[in-house]
């Protein structure tokens, strides 16, 4: 009983957090939740074996009652492939997001808090990773190991995708470090780790969340692109692999739009949900981007009496 009520209050808290989000983020969260649900139960929902073929069929068939989203050239059910492929794409995105964000937080906060030579060195490393062209490098690395699993791909994607987040988090840590409350904590004799994790990190949750969402989007788009050009394990269903087979089966030339539109739209909708969540997070952390505040129109331009006082932006810092 007690556990049940605990669970209930936990759910209520989640619900309250959710209702506090801006509308855009709410839509994004709902779509993402659906994707995660499909990633979990998708394979049991699939009406057909995604790899099954219909003997004798050599052309893709359109939408019918049995095959709601049509079939591939060999008779594979597109709907089943989408349902089964969701898991691999979503999981790869989330794993990469977690690993890369953990790296970003570790490097960014260490560099920002310690400063000095540690900062110089870590920023240098981050900047180098930032200019390495990720997609060609991934093609080169994964081209050498063609049958690598998802985990290897996720690790390589994370290794190349942490630098941007690290830079943003470093800049924020740098500005938080000089606040009075941090100085007070230092004066009281708190340990460095406690200051970093208990005093500073909670104030960067929004930034870390945004960086996580951005990394997941990067991982999904990049992994789909990699699979599309054939640099992936093609025996394992994912959106990218579906698109690869559609491209190789000349889906566009044959007029079999369902074959590539279904997985393509699936990726686009997933990407859209992540972008919407990030819009919402932006609005939470930057009040100036909110639109619901009172505003007046003078000479075609919307003025807002509640504009907060200008904050010194470290744009030179953030963009370099």
């Amino acid at each position, binding site marked *: 009983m007690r556990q049940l009520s605990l669970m209930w209050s936990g759910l209520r808290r989640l619900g309250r957090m959710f209702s506090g989000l801006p509308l855009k983020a709410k839509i994004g969260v709902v779509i993402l939740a659906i994707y995660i649900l499909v990633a979990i139960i998708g394979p049991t929902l699939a009406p057909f074996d995604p790899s099954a073929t219909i003997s004798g069929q050599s052309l893709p068939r359109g939408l019918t009652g049995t095959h709601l989203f049509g079939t591939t050239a060999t008779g594979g059910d597109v709907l089943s492939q989408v349902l089964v492929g969701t898991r691999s794409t979503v999981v790869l995105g989330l794993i990469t997001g977690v690993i890369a964000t953990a790296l970003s937080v570790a490097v960014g906060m260490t560099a920002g808090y310690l400063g000095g030579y540690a900062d110089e060195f870590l920023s240098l490393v981050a900047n180098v990773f930032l200019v390495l*062209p990720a997609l*060609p490098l991934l093609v*080169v690395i994964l081209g050498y190991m063609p049958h690598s699993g998802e985990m290897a791909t996720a690790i390589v994607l994370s290794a190349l995708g942490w630098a941007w987040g690290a830079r943003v988090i470093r800049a924020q840590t740098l500005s938080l470090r000089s606040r009075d409350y941090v100085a007070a904590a230092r004066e009281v004799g708190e340990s460095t780790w406690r200051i970093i994790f208990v005093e500073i990190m909670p104030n960067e949750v929004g930034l870390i969340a945004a960086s996580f969402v951005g990394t997941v989007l990067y991982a999904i788009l990049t992994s789909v*692109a990699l699979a599309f050009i054939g640099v992936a394990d093609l025996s394992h269903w994912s959106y990218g692999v579906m698109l690869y087979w559609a*491209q190789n089966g000349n889906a566009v030339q044959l007029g079999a739009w369902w074959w590539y539109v279904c997985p393509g739209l699936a990726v686009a909708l997933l990407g859209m949900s992540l972008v919407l969540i990030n819009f919402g997070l932006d609005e939470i952390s930057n009040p100036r981007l909110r639109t619901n505040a009172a505003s007046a129109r003078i000479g075609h331009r919307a003025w*807002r009496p509640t504009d907060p006082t*200008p904050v010194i932006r470290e744009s030179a810092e953030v*963009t370099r």
Partner: protein
Amino acid sequence: MKFVLRRLVFYVVAVWAAVTANFAIPRVMPGNAVDTMISRFPQLSPQSLHALEAEFGAGHHGSLLSQYFQYWNNLLHFNLGLSVSQYPSKVSTIIGQTLPWTLTLVGTATVISFVLGTLFGIVAAWRRGGWFDRLLPAFTLLQATPYFFLALLLIDLLALHIKLFPFGQGYSVGLTPGWNGAFVGSAITHSILPALTIILTSIGGWMLQMRNVMLTTISEDYVLVAQAKGLPARRVVFSYGARNAILPNIAGFALSLGFVVAGALVMEIVFSYPGIGLTLYNAVTSNDYPLLQGIFLVISLAVLSAALLADIAYVFLDPRARGGEAH
């Protein structure tokens, strides 16, 4: 001075990292690049085999360190080796043939996308909440769609259904590349569709960044003062607002110029466009490691030179970067 020194160290380390990654990847990866190639191309001459072994360290030609120095020495003499799939062409020749295609198409598309996106961003910020501003999320959503999916859709609609544009290759079959009307015209019509896809997918980023920085800038008091003293709106928008808000966009632009060489990888594959991205892809599928490495090196160096360009632009445009107190 400290700023210049810091950037200098950065470039040295970045070039070193790119070259070393290029050297290390084929040696670290499982499988032997040379064996793969021998099995694929049994007709290779002994000299080229020898050259390959030297390049990938498969034979027993000295320690790893001496191979490393040999590799640098070759690079400094622009010796990128010979291609295997298009044997015996030099890697540098192949890159020289394909690079102009990519630079022209993606370069032009990037400039158009940047200029339009920045202008749209300015308008969206100034008329905040207007119909144009509300349209903005649609453009950013285009960024969340996989690039090649959009490209396939456009090919389906504009090239196959309406037959508005030709699709595939860089020019019509049967024409010989040269500076004549037929060829140039064909090359231009073949480039419209790929360029359109690049612009559509990248414009949202410029717009959003410009809009958000511009929003913060025009809420500053000096912009209000400029408007209150009756300056024409155009002057307030461009000389007071946009001029101060455009800095992050320009830095981003210089960086994206470097990715012009790299970012077009998928586009060129979808459109079979004869640029450097398609060549990289072909090199991967045919296990042409010398070509693969050469292209990756060129891409890395292009990105680095663009970063240098961004730095120089910053020093010119941002007094804080010049003053030295900027961090």
